[in-house]
């Protein structure tokens, strides 16, 4: 019976520890400082996106349009600079676009009361389509000389720590402070736990929901900046990839239930670390792509099964519905 006290977060953390220990023991070259930094750097963008998603999921929503916010505004920066505009102006326009995008998402969900899954599915397609049709000349927006200096956000390091990791840490701190130490954070949890109850008690739930999606879009845009700076281009086709599933995976695997009201930044970090460790270890072992997918699937299944054994559904959890 004591086993029951383990939450999914702890189960995933345990799997992470076991995997990490196994790799460290049996895989030469894994447990080095340099490799740890690489591991973190490689999942930093995924982690930042996970934080944006967590913010929304805790408030009982979901943001499928996150990858559009990652691809389009930063892509616009590269395109504008390529066309001869100054870097600060381009960044300002991109942030304004991300802000407007978040407002549209939030308005649709909070005021027009469209379910978040459908609203963000549609707006994501809209933004990606807009980018492809009228903003970008090519799918991959290339770096140009005017971007000089911007690459430090994704390359290079401060005190030996690669900047994407610092970016991830910074967003972690901001989101953690927001969720734990501000009234807004408390409201987000309240809305996620019981939206109707929250409204009855006088919480301004609609503006808070709008704020969640605006923040998610801005964080997504920031992740895009890091990604673009890191690979010296913006492959806007990333919108068509399965990245959004990885983001949801990080959040859910870390133990933030899609039913809302639970979890926090720590869960995202744990989810991100597990994915990062698996990817890094399998790359070192040079496992084939199909083999990697197989192993990834098995570890995820193990996590889900372990969770449903340790935390069987009851009246309360069953009511909260999954997607």
């Amino acid at each position, binding site marked *: 019976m004591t086993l029951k006290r383990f939450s999914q977060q702890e189960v995933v953390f345990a799997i992470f520890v076991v995997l990490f220990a196994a790799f460290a023991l049996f895989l030469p*070259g894994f447990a*080095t400082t*340099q*490799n740890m930094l*690489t*591991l973190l*750097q*490689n999942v930093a*963008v995924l982690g930042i996106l996970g934080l944006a998603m967590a913010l929304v999921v805790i408030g009982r929503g979901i943001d499928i349009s996150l990858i559009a916010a990652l691809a389009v505004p930063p892509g616009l920066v590269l395109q504008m600079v390529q066309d001869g505009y100054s870097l600060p102006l381009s960044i300002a326009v991109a942030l304004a676009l991300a802000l407007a995008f978040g407002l549209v998402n939030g308005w649709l969900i909070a005021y027009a009361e469209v379910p978040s899954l459908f609203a963000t599915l549609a707006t994501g397609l809209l933004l990606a389509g807009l980018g*492809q049709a009228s903003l*970008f*000349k*090519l*799918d*991959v927006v*290339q770096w*140009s000389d005017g971007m000089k200096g911007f690459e430090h956000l994704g*390359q*290079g390091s401060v005190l030996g720590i*690669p900047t994407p990791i610092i970016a991830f840490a910074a967003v972690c701190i901001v989101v953690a402070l927001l969720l734990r130490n501000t009234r807004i954070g408390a409201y987000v949890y309240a809305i996620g736990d019981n939206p109707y109850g929250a409204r009855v008690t006088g919480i301004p739930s609609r503006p808070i929901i709008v704020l969640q999606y605006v923040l998610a879009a801005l964080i997504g845009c920031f992740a895009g900046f890091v*990604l673009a700076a*890191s*690979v*010296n*281009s913006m*492959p806007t*086709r*990333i919108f*068509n*990839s399965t990245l959004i599933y990885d983001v949801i995976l990080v959040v859910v695997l870390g133990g933030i239930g899609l039913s809302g009201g639970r979890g926090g930044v720590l869960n995202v970090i744990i989810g991100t670390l597990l994915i990062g460790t698996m*990817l*890094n270890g399998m*790359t*070192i072992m*040079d496992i*084939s*792509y*199909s083999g990697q997918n197989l192993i990834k699937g098995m570890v995820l299944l193990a996590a889900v099964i372990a969770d449903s054994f340790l935390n069987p559904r009851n009246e309360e959890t069953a009511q909260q519905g999954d997607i």
Partner: protein
Amino acid sequence: MFNTKSRIAAFFVGAGLAACAAVPAFAQQGLDEPFQASFKKALEGKTIGYVPVAMNFDLTEGWFAGVKKELEPYGVKVVVRDPNWSTSAGAQALTTLISEKPAAIIVHNPDVQTYAKLMQRAEKEGIYIIQVNMGSVYRSAAFVGANWIEIGERNANAVIKACQGKSNKVAIVQGALSAATSAYTLKGVENVFAKHPEIKVVSSQAADWDAAKAKAITQTVLKQNPDLCGIVGFWDGMDIGTAAAVKEAGLTGKVFVATSGGGERKGACELVKSGAFDLDVSYDVPTQAADMAGMIKWLLSSGIKPSEAKGSIYTTLTDITKDNADSQTACWNLSDLKK
């Protein structure tokens, strides 16, 4: 004797004078070239369908612009159906196009199998099929494109050369596993490495044509093998990430990065100049477009039946290195091609 000679001379002089008089007469009347009218008639008002895997990237935009530039002056309409990376949307687009009965369809296959039956049907109905860069199992009137095996071999040979006297450790960054272009290139690389047992492939992974994934893989590999001497990448659009990882590790110039692509200036020459790539094997897109347009001109004017002709135009590959990256001809600009 004398008499005969002078007669002959007189004849020639007379004939010469007559010819002189006749030439201006010819010039005034002009001479009709007997074949151009039928050529123009064969092309005038025809429609060419174009089904790429997706628009909006250098290769497919370049082909479209190049083919249009060559054929539109003859009154040929080029219509594009963009399936945006969806194979089923592409099959649907092809089916609709066939019912619209264009004179020819340019097909960029997503794989070797999916469109094969459809292309066969189109040729049965009298539509020429030109396949570009990625051939399917069905041989149609023409295939225009790169020889992926050769690309793999060239890249592998360049890496081996760069590795001489070094660690002989190399990495391979493949494209997507489902793409035959990636598998063909890998075959070429394997062909070469099989002859060089001293080469040790420390990593051979698929990065899904994704620059971020390519960077992540390369970073990990470089941390494990800092003495790596070369990397064979499968597409320059993805290997921006590979090169970024090499640069971040401070190994630019020490790790030879070989890749391939369509030779667009920003994606190829600029990156070779900056030192990101040491070799970019280019299947020059404007040449491929011109080859396709040439094929279409020939097929339409020949009146040959679609199923009767089957041939290939493999693109002559160009190595883009530091030596020629500066030249005007090594790369092309999409904006110039669209003018």
